[in-house]
């Protein structure tokens, strides 16, 4: 049965989204347990298929419909997407468990069945985009993930439908330019399979049609990855989305986009082409430098906690872009490891912010006074997440930034290294401002007295505390075992020829 694991990762959440919707019409209580069961099954399947890759050392190939690759669709699980699959499974499972009380609070009871069905379809889209070996199949799953994201964001109140519509305009522009890029690849080669494309593309690297095709492909992926110049949709849509939705979308969707960029640049196109022959990665590096500086400063300027985290996501995308820009082994190790860490870090931070917004009833940074007294665990989670984003040693953020800076220096790109350090500094300023407000606020401050006398944050449900605590432990464990992860998994994940 284990040979079918790689397709079960995608089929099980798909099937369970249908069943959750169907049975939800009759019995609303069945939705949450079925969702958690499906995501737990996905965790087993992704961990299982990743373990077979680790033990055998060779990628797992799965022919859908029994047809060989260029004619049929093929699933490939290798070191790179095995890692990403397992991370997605863990984060989405914890997000589902965490979001239960928020869903009960924010989403009207009649809408629970479609909500959980869209939740599962979003996870199906993310799994499918990661595991597929076919360019057009990736587009279809990109659309499934995007549609469920638009609908889930549109659930929020107030300006959420408007933010969702603007996100849809941007997202469709991105998805269509990705489709256009796949069309240019198809007209030049005649094939859609990634491994097949790699061989056929080599002789026609410098044909003009292919250059424009690659430009559109990268534009589409950059929109989905919220890369710097085309990230305008992200702050509004993730801030106005209900917090049970942004806990799922924020950590995962943009990181799968980053994974697709690494997959296209280094597996579909030969690394020697995208690094040396045509300096695509250097251009990405320079745009990422601008992105880091711009979005770090924008994050500083934000009063709203959630909007600040959204700009942090754009900064993290910039770090991954700098790693790709360095274009050497440590740089790519850093960007893959940062992609992995960021899923957990952002998941932790969005869980903390969701809890603060729901129980402490404040969204602005200034309103956080005395958080440690009424919500100690959330404050601790905020500290762990913040320190990890800054890059403080025992936590995972430090190690991925270490490799990124190592790669930038080895590639003699001083501005890349400078941007990384400056970004970390700006993050430090950002988060210490919050920690200071949470922990060290002087008692005589009026806001503090109001908070003390005023409403006491109500007890957080255990269902929210445990996933947040687990995520914080994972962030710490990722840091401690980073050497093991890099040596055994990421070292092999880097495509040959980098």
């Amino acid at each position, binding site marked *: 049965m284990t040979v079918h694991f790689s397709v079960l990762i995608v089929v099980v959440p798909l099937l369970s989204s249908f069943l959750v919707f169907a049975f939800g019409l009759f019995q609303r209580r069945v939705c949450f347990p079925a969702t958690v069961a499906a995501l737990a099954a996905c965790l087993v399947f992704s961990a299982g298929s990743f373990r077979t890759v680790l033990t055998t050392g060779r990628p797992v190939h799965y022919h859908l419909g029994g047809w060989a690759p260029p004619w*049929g669709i093929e699933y490939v699980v290798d070191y790179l997407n095995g890692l990403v699959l397992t991370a997605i499974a863990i984060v989405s499972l914890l997000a589902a468990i965490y979001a239960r009380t928020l869903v009960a609070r924010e989403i009207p009871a009649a809408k629970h069945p*479609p*909500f959980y069905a869209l939740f599962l379809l979003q996870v199906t889209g993310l799994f499918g985009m990661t595991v597929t070996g076919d360019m057009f199949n990736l587009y279809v799953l990109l659309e499934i993930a995007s549609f469920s994201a638009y*609908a889930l964001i549109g659930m929020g109140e107030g300006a959420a439908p408007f933010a969702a519509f603007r996100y849809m305009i941007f997202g469709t522009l991105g998805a269509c330019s990705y489709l256009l890029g796949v069309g240019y690849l198809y*007209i030049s*080669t*005649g094939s859609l399979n990634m491994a097949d494309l790699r061989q*056929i593309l080599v002789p026609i690297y410098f044909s003009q049609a292919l250059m424009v095709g690659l430009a559109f492909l990268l534009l589409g992926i950059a929109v989905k990855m919220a890369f710097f110049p085309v990230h305008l949709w992200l702050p509004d849509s993730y801030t106005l989305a209900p917090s049970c939705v942004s806990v799922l979308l924020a950590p995962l969707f943009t990181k799968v986009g980053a994974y697709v960029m690494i997959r296209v640049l280094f597996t579909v196109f030969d690394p020697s082409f995208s690094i040396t022959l045509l300096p695509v990665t250097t251009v990405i590096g320079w745009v990422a430098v601008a992105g880091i500086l711009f979005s770090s400063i924008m994050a500083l300027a934000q009063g709203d906690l959630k909007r600040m985290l959204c700009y942090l996501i754009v900064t993290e995308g910039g770090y991954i872009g700098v790693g790709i820009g360095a274009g050497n082994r440590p740089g790519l190790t850093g960007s893959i490891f940062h992609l992995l860490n960021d899923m957990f870090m952002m998941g932790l931070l969005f869980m903390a912010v969701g809890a603060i917004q729901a129980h402490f009833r404040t969204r602005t940074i200034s309103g956080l006074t005395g958080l440690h007294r009424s919500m100690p665990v959330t404050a601790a989670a905020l500290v762990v997440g913040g320190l990890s984003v800054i890059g403080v040693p025992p936590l995972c953020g430090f190690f991925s930034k270490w490799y990124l800076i190592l790669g930038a220096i080895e590639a003699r790109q001083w501005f890349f290294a400078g941007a990384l350090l400056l970004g970390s500094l700006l993050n430090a300023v950002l988060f210490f401002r919050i920690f200071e407000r949470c922990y060290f606020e002087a008692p005589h401050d009026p806001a503090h007295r109001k908070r003390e006398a005023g409403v006491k944050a109500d007890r957080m449900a255990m269902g929210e505390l445990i996933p947040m605590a687990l995520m914080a432990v994972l962030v710490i464990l990722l840091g401690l075992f980073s050497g093991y992860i890099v040596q055994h998994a990421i070292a092999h994940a880097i495509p040959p020829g980098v």
Partner: protein
Amino acid sequence: MNKLAALPATLVAGGFLFYSTAFFPSWGDPDQPAGRHVSPRYIEKTLAETGVPNAVTSVLADYRGYDTMFETSVIFTAGIAVMMLLRGSR
């Protein structure tokens, strides 16, 4: 983006696109890469392997049936998304 930014962006994108169309294989010639590499097998083997004369249906439902499964899931997603967004929001 307002009108000011949209027009230059369109012209730049248009320049790229027109430039690239000059290097496409000419329209309709039988031995362009797309007609040579993968699709001949679909046409020649569809009757032998799947018993379905209509090559489009055999590719749609069998060779690339997985795409069509997700296509149906896309239309299902749209259905429940509209159902969720509009119903009960009176």
